[in-house]
């Protein structure tokens, strides 16, 4: 087990290193840099100023040097300075993380707490009207562009309550907290709950065909015991994987949702930073997201071992 952990961590480091290379050089391939943008915003460029500025920001140096500089800093906890705001990147990124984390957490929670039970019901009642209805609803969840769903929710909220949930970093009341976090989380979670439901359903169907389910029935176990005790315990494994993968996809959904609901989280910030070619922000944020995703995958693997006694990472 310990050896396995170390090995996994090493692999994770390799992956993260790879990501750092990819993201760093990918960004440099993207035409246009912060200097261009700054001058575009000003509508003019004085070549001398441009050179000065490039020097000042250090983007005149060879890429490899820049890369080593970045990684070196990263290892010391120094993320550099945002080109745009000129504040330490860490200071820009850190306060936004809890916001997105809360959203993502709530969305996952929502997705699991809706998706899993509905998936079980749908599988148990396979072929029934309920099954069809649930499948159609979940599919419509998957078919709505998320910005569109978000806008609909906002419009409906204004039309019905004359109010719009506007982000408030320090909600004063439950209502505000609900509006700030839960509604957007539900919009994001709706889509992934549809996914969770589908995967739960197919996983359950698979498990329900297994011999040991028949054994449980032969013991005289009730339907509920068979479905939830014997079947779900086995069916949950692929669901965990999907929820883990969802964690990565969630970031994409959050970019859009944070934009629609105007939530100052990391996802939207990332898009802005890409637009501004604010490399220190983009690089570090992407690295942060990658770390989260990689750890999410790792957690999923660990959860697997918890839920499935057959998996005991001994090697």
């Amino acid at each position, binding site marked *: 087990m310990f050896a396995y952990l170390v090995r996994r961590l090493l692999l994770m480091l390799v992956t993260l290193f790879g990501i750092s290379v990819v993201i760093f050089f990918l960004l440099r391939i993207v035409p246009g840099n912060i200097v261009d943008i700054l001058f575009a915003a000003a509508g003019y460029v004085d070549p001398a100023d441009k050179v000065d500025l490039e020097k000042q920001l250090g983007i005149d140096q060879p890429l490899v040097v820049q890369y080593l500089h970045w990684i070196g800093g990263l290892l010391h906890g120094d993320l550099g300075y945002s080109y745009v705001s000129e504040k330490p990147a860490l200071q820009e990124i850190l306060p936004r993380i809890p916001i997105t984390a809360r959203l993502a957490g709530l969305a996952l929670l929502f997705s699991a707490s809706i998706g899993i039970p509905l998936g079980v019901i749908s599988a148990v009642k396979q072929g029934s009207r309920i099954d069809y209805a649930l499948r159609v609803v979940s599919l419509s969840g998957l078919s709505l562009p998320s910005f569109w769903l978000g806008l609909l929710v906002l419009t409906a909220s204004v039309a019905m309550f004359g109010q719009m949930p506007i982000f408030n970093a320090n909600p004063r009341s439950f209502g505000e907290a609900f509006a700030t976090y839960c509604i957007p989380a539900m919009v994001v979670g709706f889509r992934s709950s549809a996914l969770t439901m589908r995967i739960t359903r197919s996983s359950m169907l698979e498990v329900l065909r297994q*011999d040991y389910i028949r*054994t449980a029935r*032969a*013991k005289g176990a009730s339907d509920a015991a068979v479905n939830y005790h014997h079947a779900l315990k086995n069916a949950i494994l692929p669901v965990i994987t999907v929820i883990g993968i969802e964690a990565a996809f969630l970031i994409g959904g959050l970019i859009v949702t944070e934009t629609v609901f105007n939530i100052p989280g990391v996802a939207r910030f990332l898009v802005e930073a890409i637009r501004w070619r604010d490399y220190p922000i983009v690089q570090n944020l992407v690295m942060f997201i990658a770390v989260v995703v990689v750890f999410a995958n790792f957690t999923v693997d660990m959860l697997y071992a918890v839920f499935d006694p057959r998996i005991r990472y001994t090697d």
Partner: protein
Amino acid sequence: MADRSDLVLDVKNLKTVFFTNSGLFKAVDDLSFTVKRGETLAIVGESGCGKSVTALSLMRLVPDPPGRIVDGSVLLEGTDLLALNETEMRKIRGNRISMIFQEPMTSLNPVIRIGDQIIEAVRLHRNLSSREAKDIAVEMLRLVRIPEPARRAKEYPHQLSGGMRQRAMIAMALACRPALLIADEPTTALDVTIQAQILALILDLQKELGTGLVLITHDLGVVAQAAQRVIVMYAGRKVEEAGVEALFAAPRHPYTRGLMASIPAVPAPGVAAPARLNEIPGTVPSLVRLPKGCAFAPRCPLAVKRCEAEYPPLTDWGGGHLAACWRAADVAEVA
């Protein structure tokens, strides 16, 4: 069939079909038999002839859809199982009637400890504390000769070898001391040396508990060693039934006879070159398009016109030796 009170199981005209997209599968067709207390009834026949479906029908576990028991009655200690509702049936399953499945590898829930799976079986039918149930579980494991039962109870199925898993299955099936145990090919997936151990174990326990046993197999050797009475099935139907000695001494149905002849035996000394086996030509018919008459007729060396037109009735040839063959009388002569 003298003493009715001694009957654990009385199956009459059982008919189970499958509605599939290639047609109607008559998996079990008009099957009747009885099992006495402490008796072992073997059901033999080749793959797909309806042995497992028979077992599942007794348990009322035929998957629906596509399967359905469409006719007959199953009297277990006098109660017609087919007339019970699902809740009542659940009280009987695992309690008065229980079953050991073919695949010990897949028939145990991989994510639940062995002990807990047995405990569940006990507590479903006995009003016991979990402590007491646990003791019973360990006791059962000891009974099926699993070494260190208390430790093994805490293990998961994958930590056990195939033979041990089958023992655990047996422990689970017998935990409530059922009146009838159905063992559906309990040793097919195991090696010969392990098979011998498991068979001996089942028979011992059966004797000990006085349970009626339905032993399903396709291995005539196993039948000969274990059963008192035998049913031979072919394409969903019972084609022959007899006491084990009578059957082996003088099979009345050409299929039974062919089967016995085609099984390779450990050879008698002195035969140098490999000898051809007696084979039954042709293939097992599909259960959808069964011939109108005797299903075995196309492969039968004795087949006559009548066989193709009319299904032969089960006839008693004396001493409870039943066979369904127009030419049953000639079989013995030919053999």
